[in-house]
């Protein structure tokens, strides 16, 4: 899901950085120091979550979990994902400084959308909750894949086919993310329902 450095055009990089700056500003304004620590440690947890590999058929993929993150943190997903990507850049050199804005926006924006559209149903009960949680997990990954593909496609026409392939490769990941999100949400609601009142 990460776009490396040096691939995208300056216009896309600038746009991504600007949108991320706005999202992060909103996220930070809504956070006070009382909840900052919670967000920091949850960001660490999601960073660890993105290192979890699950088998899909013959291959395996790592989880992204931006849907669940968005559902729990709301707008704070922007700073949390930004920080997570910064750490990935520093620790593993995935992504980098110039693409930080684009990558953050691509993952955080669908997460925030999920927060507004699907979260009310996710804290409900019964089948509606499962469906909403599945959609939240799957569509957040789909949205992130779509935005990534779009940023590639708008950079150069030649990347169009590569972008399409990249998106298709994410379809199985979407299903797995959806399933994992459903189960994680039902577990959290049973064990610690106040998780969903952080944001």
């Amino acid at each position, binding site marked *: 899901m990460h776009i490396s450095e040096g691939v995208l055009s300056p216009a896309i990089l600038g746009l991504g950085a600007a949108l991320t700056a706005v999202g992060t500003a909103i996220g930070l304004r809504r956070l006070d120091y009382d909840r900052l620590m919670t967000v920091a*440690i949850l960001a660490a947890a999601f960073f660890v*979550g993105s290192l979890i590999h699950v088998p899909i058929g013959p291959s395996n993929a790592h989880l992204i979990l931006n849907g669940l993150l968005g559902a729990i943190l709301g707008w704070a997903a922007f700073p949390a994902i930004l920080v997570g990507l910064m750490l990935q850049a520093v620790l593993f050199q995935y992504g980098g400084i110039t693409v930080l804005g684009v990558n953050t926006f691509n993952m955080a924006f669908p997460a925030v959308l999920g927060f507004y559209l699907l979260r009310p149903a996710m804290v409900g009960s019964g089948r509606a909750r499962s469906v909403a949680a599945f959609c939240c997990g799957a569509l957040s990954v789909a949205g992130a894949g779509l935005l990534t593909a779009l940023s590639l496609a708008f950079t150069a026409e030649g990347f169009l086919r590569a972008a399409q392939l990249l998106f298709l490769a994410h379809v199985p990941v979407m299903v797995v993310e959806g399933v994992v999100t459903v189960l994680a949400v039902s577990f959290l609601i049973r064990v610690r329902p106040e*998780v969903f009142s952080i944001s």
Partner: protein
Amino acid sequence: MAAAFSVTVAMVRHPGTAAAGLLMAMIALCASLPPKRALLRRVVLVNVFILFLWLTVPLTMPGETLWTLGAVGVSREGLELVGMVTLKSNAILLAFLALVASMDSPTIGHAMARLGVPSKLVFLFLFTYRYVHVIADEWQRLRTAARLRGFVPRTDMRTYATVGHLFAMVLVRSLDRSARVYRAMILRGFDGRFASVCRFTIRPRDGLFVLCGLAAHILMIFMECFAGVLRV
């Protein structure tokens, strides 16, 4: 400085300049003396994405066909685009490795604070970094417990259910931990600011470094303009 370098290289449009950027990044990297084996692994990892582009873009990009492989033609424009991306990507990566990754994260955090990054973001960065390893240990513990009970990851519902529950458990524990840590910090008089024990000072060496960096930038910008003039 790394950021400025990355931005400049990302803007560059001519292969010659990109290659020069790569060379400069290599020089900076040699100066920072990183451990070789770890370095190599990281460079290879990033180039996996580049390899993916090499495999797809030249085959699918419309343009003048150089040669054909069975049914698909390899286009010149496609090759140029990917070659360019490869050069730029590696130049930025090496510069980043040399200039940023050789710092430890607390230093990066303090540097960000001094550069005017919002203090809440710096706080998040420092504490997320601080607890990543702790949470990773937590996850490992749960996974070990699952494996002791005979859990083998497969492509089935049970695996995904287990992973979902384990991860949710990690979230619950993180939440509890954050409450404990925050209370402990309040007890020690935390008021939203960090008092740093070590101070950063500017040494003559740093001034020299900034000068060299500026010179390298100006050189690259010149090459970019000059190449443009030559082509037209």
